[in-house]
């Protein structure tokens, strides 16, 4: 995995903010910070699998914080990423009801000043549930929903890319897929309750 030599924090924050070609800043964050986060988690009762999950979640939170203008320009990307990772890991250990392990974890005050908000953590938990529901959809549904809602492609572009016969066919398919997902979310009482809470935080 290659990262340009002249690519730095400033450029990564700029690209994430612009939300164009996120692969580049994500590769940069992996190259710069993954090993450090992994070492921290391994030292604090975690496994390499935990480190992989926590780092992915950390990047989700970091990228969304930057895009949502919640990233403070006065903190370095490194300290931000590490603080998020540490807090996510502590939350995970709490979730595992591992109080004794929690007590051994090293955190300093500076780390605790930068942390994902409760809102972000709840959203993160909700996200995992939604991700599970999304993955249960068919391949065509997953593609069409991501092309439309993540890649912001138009109906015409999706029609051409996925070889649909007309834009209306794409529109109908997208509706069916979205409805299936929404019905699944609705049928999960905890998730649905969180949906309301999450929207109330807005």
């Amino acid at each position, binding site marked *: *995995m290659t990262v340009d030599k002249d690519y730095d924090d400033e450029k990564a924050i700029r690209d994430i903010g612009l939300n164009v070609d*996120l*692969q580049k800043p*994500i*590769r940069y964050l*992996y*190259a710069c910070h*993954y090993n450090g986060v992994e070492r921290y988690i391994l030292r604090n009762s975690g496994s390499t699998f935990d480190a*992989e999950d926590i*780092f*992915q979640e950390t*990047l*989700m939170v970091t*990228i*969304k914080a930057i895009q949502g203008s919640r990233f403070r320009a006065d903190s370095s990307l490194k300290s931000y990423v590490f603080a998020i990772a540490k807090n996510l890991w502590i939350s995970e250990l709490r979730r595992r009801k591992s109080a004794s392990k929690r007590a051994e974890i090293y955190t300093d005050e500076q780390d605790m000043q930068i942390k994902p908000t409760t809102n972000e953590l709840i959203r993160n938990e*909700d*996200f995992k549930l*939604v*991700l599970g529901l*999304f993955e249960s959809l068919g391949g065509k549904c997953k593609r069409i*929903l*991501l092309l439309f*809602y*993540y*890649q912001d492609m138009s109906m015409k572009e999706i029609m051409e890319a996925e070889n649909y016969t007309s834009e209306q066919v794409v*529109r*109908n398919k997208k*509706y069916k897929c*979205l*409805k299936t*997902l*929404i019905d699944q*979310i*609705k049928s999960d009482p905890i998730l*649905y309750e969180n*949906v*309301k809470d*999450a*929207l109330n935080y807005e």
Partner: protein
Amino acid sequence: MNKQEIFELLEDYLEGRLDDRAKVDLESKIASDVELREQLELLTFTKRQLKDVGLWREINSVHETFKSDREKKSKGQVISLFGKKWIGIAASFLLIFAFISISLYQLQPSKIVDDNYIAYKLPVMRSEEGQHTAVELFYQQRDWDNLLSWVEKEQSPEQKPYFFAGLASYEKGAYSETLNYFNRVGEINARAEKKLFEQEMDFYSSLTYLQLGEFDEAYRLIDKMKENRSHVYHDAFGRWDRFKIRLLKLKKGG
């Protein structure tokens, strides 16, 4: 309006694609219709989650590449460690093994003998000039058959005829006979005050044993010559010759 059209209207509303009149109209319906409000909430939430799913997948694709590169790198390090040190050693062993195999295949005792053979030269002493015995004359003339006939006929009590008979037999390729004649010299030496041809017999016996394929005996005699710095044939065989004799022994399976 069917369900799909309602969904699409809500999406247009969320994306700001409705004109003011349609927007006000819809907002009024949302305010009074619980089910419509719930649909809007779910749509808002799901749209946001779908963006997160896309981001997650993007992060995950980088994660998989990162992980795979890391594994390759770690394997590469093992290979390079192995490569730099152990493969080098293994290659050296292979080369040595290949060299030994080729050498073993090509190695013949006659080759060692030919490389190290020193013909026995009659001593040339002024006092003895013109006084060579018959056996010496036959030897000088390389007349092996007459030499051997003469020795058998004469049955001398001295060592010299039997020593030359041993050399003549060697020249004729009758190696067992060589050893027999040298044994007779040894027997006479055992009784005689003056021991003769002992060092010469060490050397020619070692060649004879090599020709007979009795490498242990040949090696023992060569060792004996090497250990004795004043031995006339001390430098007749080198270390490499001794190594080759060991290889011959290996080749023979001894």
